[in-house]
Each structure stands twice: as C-alpha cells, then as structure tokens.
C-alpha cells in the first residue's frame, strides 16, 4: 500500500536520517556550503598555521605594538613585540581541540542521560531531569568561570566545565526525541526478546536519534567555541606565553590605538568559526526537516496525499 515504488525510491534516496546522507544533503544547500566553507577556512588556519608560521610565536622580534610592515611582519608586533601573524597562526589549534573535546564529551554524556531518562522513566527520569534543571539554572559562562577559578586554569577542567554546561541541554532535547521512539513497537519487540536496557538503548533507540544528535552536536560546537574563547580571554585557557586567540584579544587590547590587528584578526577568526559551525548546524537541521530542499517539501506533500488516512487504526 502507501506510496509505491517511485515515491519510495525517491524517499529512499533522501535516506532521511542516516548521518552520512544528512551531512551530504546539508552540503548541497547554499547555507550548508557557506557554513562548511567558513569552518574549513578557519580550521585550516588553525591546523596548518603552526607549521608555516614565519617566526616562533614566543620570540621577541620587534617593538611592542609595531604597526604592520615593521621588520617585514604582516600584522606587526603584539604587546611584547612578538610577531602577531605567527601568534595568530599558532593560536587556533588549542581552541579547536578544546571545543571539539568539550562538545564530544557534552553530547555523549547528555545523550546517554537523555536516553536513559526517556527509556527507564520513573525515578531515573526524575533524578536525571531534576539534576539537569539545577545545571540549567546557572549560566554556562558563569559556571565555567566558577569551576575554573576554584580549581585552577587547567585545560582538562575547561573541557570538563564546558561539557558539563552542554550535557543538560543535550539531555533535554534527546530525552524529548527518545520518549517518542521508546513507545514504538520495535522497542517492545526487543524487550520481548529479553534485551537488556543497554542493548535496547544502543541498538534500537540510538540509531533513530542520529538526526537530533547531529543537529545538537553542531549547535553545541559553536557554543563551545564561544565559551572556550571567552574563558581564554579571561585568562582561564592556555597560559602565557603560549599563543591563543581569546587570550590575544585580552593581551593586546591596550594597543588597540597603535596596532589593532593583533586584536582584530583573532576576533574575526573566532567569529567566523562560530558563525560557520552555527550555519552548518542550521543547514543540518533544515535538511532533516526538509526545509531547504524543494524536493523534500514536494515529496512530503505527495506522500501526504498519496498516503491517505484511513484503512485500519480501528
């Protein structure tokens, strides 16, 4: 019954929800391409940068806040007379790495908590969700600051703190999506077989959550970038003399009048990275909903009319 072969094969091509397919479809939309381009651009600077930097990021070369062109330096000197360009090239990888790690940790922990809460219901649900409520009531940046200022400026702690601010939000979203999945008959079929809760969650429920998980991961990554560079600006990231974009903004803001570039360039790079990841996450969300693809909208309309209501349910 239902829409027959053609519609089915087109829907199949859409393969809605399989991660590779979703990312591929997101890359086809203008929005997704723009996002991906920005991410690749900034990521390339951050990863290749350290290998092509003309000078050591910590070497004192010129006078403080020397304007661009002095001693052949592209962006001039920073507050201590180091090469601003080399510091920009070397100051991104830490941010990228920390943001990825924090996102991964936060999404994994949040997704697990959300799925357990949705599947087990009852007291595990109450305990998990009330805990997330507590965390959600504290602003992310304040919480990170609090933790880091108590324990000390360790990088692992930054990752942990940021992950901890993400997890409750991810848990909420995933729980909402998983509750509906947990009601499905195939989950009951797995329970009847005698699967353990862990098996039901990982084999039956998790594969159906790839779409919200992808969207969440993208969104959380862009938040991670903002929070981590913010913490780094406040001095809780990499410690001097290491180069770091967020920290560079803070170090060099006094020389804004003489040489704005050591502040300006890291600002732009952080912004581009955040915008890029956010745009890409948005593209993924839209693809999964079928907004940005004319075909998908049309398909849903056709499916809606072809799949007439009725027959059964009775």
């Amino acid at each position: 019954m239902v829409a027959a072969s053609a519609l089915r094969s087109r829907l199949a091509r859409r393969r809605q929800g399989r991660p590779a397919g979703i990312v591929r479809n997101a890359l086809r939309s203008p929005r997704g391409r723009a996002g991906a381009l920005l991410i690749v651009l900034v990521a390339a600077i951050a990863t290749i940068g350290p290998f092509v930097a003309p000078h050591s990021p910590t070497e004192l070369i010129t006078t403080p806040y020397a304007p661009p062109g002095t001693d052949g330096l592209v962006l001039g000197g920073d507050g201590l007379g180091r090469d601003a360009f080399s510091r920009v090239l070397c100051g991104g990888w830490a941010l990228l790495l920390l943001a990825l790690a924090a996102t991964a940790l936060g999404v994994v922990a949040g997704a697990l908590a959300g799925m357990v809460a949705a599947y087990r219901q009852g007291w595990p649900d109450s305990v998990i969700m009330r805990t997330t409520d507590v965390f959600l009531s504290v602003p992310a940046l304040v919480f990170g600051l609090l933790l880091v200022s108590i324990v000390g400026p360790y990088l692992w702690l930054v990752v942990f703190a940021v992950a901890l601010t993400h997890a409750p939000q991810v848990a909420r979203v995933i729980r909402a999506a998983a509750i509906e999945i947990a009601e499905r008959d195939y989950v009951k079929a797995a329970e009847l077989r005698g699967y353990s809760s862990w098996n039901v969650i990982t084999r039956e429920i998790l594969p159906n959550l790839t779409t919200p998980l992808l969207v969440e991961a993208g969104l959380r990554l862009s938040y991670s970038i903002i929070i981590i560079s913010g913490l780094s600006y406040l001095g809780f990231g990499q410690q001097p003399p290491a180069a770091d974009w967020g920290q560079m903004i803070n170090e060099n803001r006094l020389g804004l009048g003489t040489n704005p570039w050591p502040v300006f360039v890291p600002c732009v790079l952080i912004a581009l990275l955040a915008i890029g990841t956010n745009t890409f996450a948005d593209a993924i969300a839209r693809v999964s909903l079928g907004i940005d693809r004319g075909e998908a909208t049309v398909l849903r309309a056709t499916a809606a009319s072809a799949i007439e209501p009725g027959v059964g349910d009775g």
Partner: protein
Amino acid sequence: MCVAAARRAGTPVVEGINLEIAPGKVLGIVGESGSGKTTFALSLLGYAKRGLRIAAGEVLLDNVDLLSLPAGRLREIRGLRVTYVPQDPASALNPSQRIRTQMREPLEVHRSQLDPDLDIDARLAEVCAAANLPTTDKILDAYPHQLSGGQQQRVAIAMAFACGPELIVLDEPTTGLDVTTQRHILETIRRLTSENDVAAVYVSHDLPVVAQIADDVAVMYAGRVIEVGPIKAVMTAPAHPYTRALLRAAPTPERTSALVGIDGSPPSPGQWPVGCAFAPRCPLAVSECRSELPDLKVRGGRTQRVRCIRSTVAVREEPRRAIVAPLAPDAPVAGGELAIEGLDAHYGAFHVLRDVSLQVARGECVGVVGESGSGKTTLARCVVGMHRTWTGRMLLDGKPLASRGREFEHRRKVQYIFQNPYTSLNPRHTVGESLAAPLRHFEDVDRAECAGRVRAMLERVALRADFVDRYPDQLSGGERQRVAIGRALIVEPEFVICDEVTSALDVSVQAVIIELLRQMQAERAISMLFITHNIAVMRSIAQRVVVLNEGRLVENGTVDQVMTKPRDPYTVRLLADVPKMSEAVNENG
C-alpha cells in the same frame, strides 16, 4: 457532475473523473490507500490538500461550477450547501470547545444566508434529534473527549446536516468505530440523506460497508475511476478485473471460500503506466492494455460503466479453497499447547480481564474476537509477557509462564506479531538486520548460518533476496508485515500471537498476509492466537474462536459453531451487525 484533476508539480494525483449524483442518493467511492479517493472527495468542496491544487475540471452544483467561484463565494457555499464529514471525529472536533459552541458555528456563520431570524437552538435540537443524539444539555455542554466515538461522529454528522446542504461528502466516517456503532451510524446517514433529499458521497476502503449504504458505487484505482454503476450490478457482476479481485479479497462473514489477495502494489502518482494502470497486476491483460488507456463506458450489455477492454472476457474462476484450515495431523509438532486458567488482569485499578480460561491445542489457531475495550489485546499481552499485572495460571506445555522475569526459552517459544508494521520495524535497521536480531539473540549461530537462515526466511515469506539490504521505508505495508512475520518465525517458535496484524493493511494485501500466515501455521504446526475485531477475517484462518466482551469470555467453539449457531446474545448481536455484502445488495438493489 464533476471532472476533477488535482495536480502538483505536474504529477496528476487524480484524473479524468466524471460522475453524477442525484439528490437523495448515496454514491460510494471505493479504493485502496493512495487511490486518490480522499483527494477526489475534497475536490468536491473545491478544496485541495497542501501541496496539491485542482488543475482542471469543474464541480457543478445545480449548474454552478464551484471551482470557478472566487474564494469568498466558495466559503459561503462550503458548510451551507456542500458539507464534509471527516474520518476521525476525535481530531475533527476542537477539544477545547464545548459541543454546543462547535455545533452552533456553521449555523451562525451561514445565518444571514439561511434565515436572519433563525432560532439556532431550536434548529440544533432538530438536527440532534435527526442524528439520534440526545439533545440533553449533558451532551451539548460536554467537551468532545467526554463523548464516545459514536457520539462524536453523530455530532459531526449533525453539523454537516445542520444547514440543510445539497451535497454531503463523508470521508470514511465509520472507520475506527465498532461494528454495532458503525451500523447505527450508517443507518442514520442513509435515513438523513433520503429524508432530506441530500446527495451524498461516501468514501471508504471497505466494500461491505459501501454495499450497505450506497445506491451507486465508483471504484477508484490509481487516481481514476475504473468502474461505476449501481451497487448491485457492481457487487454481483463486477466487470473490471480489479473490482473482481477486490471482491475476492474482501472478508465478509458469509463467505466460505478463502480470501484471495492481489499481488503487487498499485502505482504511485507520477508512476502511472501509459495504458491501464491495473495492467501490470491484471491476469487478463493483453498488449493493448499496456499501450492505451481505455475509456470509462458501458461495455458488453452491462448496467455499469467500466474502464477495461477485457471486461467482457469470461474469467476462468480459479477453484476456491475451502475456508477453514484443517489441522495438519502428522505435522512435526514440538509443542505449543497453551492453557490459560482463571486469568484476571488489571491496568491500575481497572479490571480488564475477568476469569478468562482458554485452551489452545498444539498446532491450532484460535481466533480471539472482540470490540475495542473487550480486553483482547490485554489477553495477548499477558500471554507474551508484555502485560505483567495478572493473576491466574498460564501453562505452556504444562510449564507455567511467569508473569515477570520470563524464562529465556519461553521468550523464544512465544512470539508476537504487532498490529502496525509501520512502527514494529526499526527504521534504522535493514530487513536483514531485523531478521537476524532475534536469531543472534536466541541461538548461537555463526555469521554464515545466520545469513543463510535470513535468506531462507525471506524466501519463505515471499520476499526477494535483495530485500536483505533494504530499509523499512523502502517497503510497502504488506512487505513490512511479511518482514515482521519472518522476524517472529525465524527462531522456530511454538506459539505465535498475532495482534490485529492486518488492520493497518489494505484488503487486497490483508488477504495475501492472512494466506501467508495460514500456510506457515499449517506447515509448521505452530499454535496461534489470532486477535482481531473483524469476525470475517478471523474466519479465514482460525479453527476455533473465542469471543470476549468486557473482559469476559462469552463464547468458545469451533468457527462453524460460532458463526452459524452462536449461543451468547452478545455474539449474536456482533454477527448481526457485521456488514454483509449479500444482504446489503438485496436490500438496496
């Protein structure tokens, strides 16, 4: 009266329909899912679902073309002269408004056109009485959820008749209602249309229901009408091969031959073949059928019009198999004898099953029949272990089935097939993975053996080997249900519970699935509990039948006994209310 063609992005969904309805008559529109019957019905109100538009054609109501009217004029006519009764009253009525408010609305909106001095409350009382709704304030002041399904549908029908329309479009108004309620609703519609001289279009997938109410019937297939004529002519001497096949597949309680399904699935919009859309599945098709679309016209001296060049060809009636599946006497029965003694089940404080005792012999299929709320699904869930709060005894081959913490072996031996194949297969698992999961769980099989048995099972449920790598969204409803059956049978169970396994499927597919189940059950001598609300379907597969009413077992006997000489008054009533094709044709024709 109407030619409608709905198109979207150039793909016609419904095309070339040309029908007339006289006042006081009921035109039945019959078709399976995706045949375009709802799209057509809505176009009668000048309405198209999102993504669709009515590209061409006219709907003439007293020689006025509704489709050419400006939106404002159309709105004046909708609800006043042409009205619509949707399928599901529960979602058609606004849950946050009282019934009175909702019923007054059409009258208030069209008051100026009807009669400015109209006494709305008096009219409300009138239509409620006509629709057999008690006009007490209790009903009118209630919210929709406080009414039963039948009452909700009566409200919707009363609303449709309130303004004295000339045409009323009913879209499967009884789907989802119990047979008794369904019969009463059908009687009400029938009476209201003839008393008020209203032309009615009754859309349904259910042939026997249409046979009860319609004067004329149009059969739709792939967006076109393929046969139209007086109900009696179409039912007794169907001309189109599709109509014939549909009648062979439709379960009715009086039939004594097995159901015959239609293989294949109908083409979707945009995939219609050049010639007759049914040709690829038609046993009578010749090459001309595939090249040219036949006209809808009277052929071979019949009374109905038909869109088939082969309609005059005499069909060789294939010999029909006797309906009741005999027990295979020397089948390799391993076990599967179930005894239920004094089963009581609760949902919280609600007592669902009361003192149910039941025996299922080895290799026997017992049909469990009952209306919604009778506890038949709870019974199934108790047996399989999904519902845990019960008391009493359940023995499988003499060993007690635990209410909780069920034994590993029992989990394998007792398998469950779900009602809805659209939710029982994990959309992220391929067919192969779905079939292999229980096998890997219950048996110690290596990769090669597992793949071999999956392949064998696919062949057994009549699916091609390349389905292994498909995902459920690439499968039709019938194909999905085959996979679900395969998943239950791959671990060689001794006892299988089928919970309304065909109620989400079209009749032609239902017949195929029932036949498949019947064969598998007979072949392997599996014991079976077949849960259904449809007595007619049960007749095609079960040897014995029990009837549940409000949690009590009221009837227990062989199929023939129960169908011909029911003892309990409830069973008698249930059997009387089931739509029967022969009786209906005699009444109306």
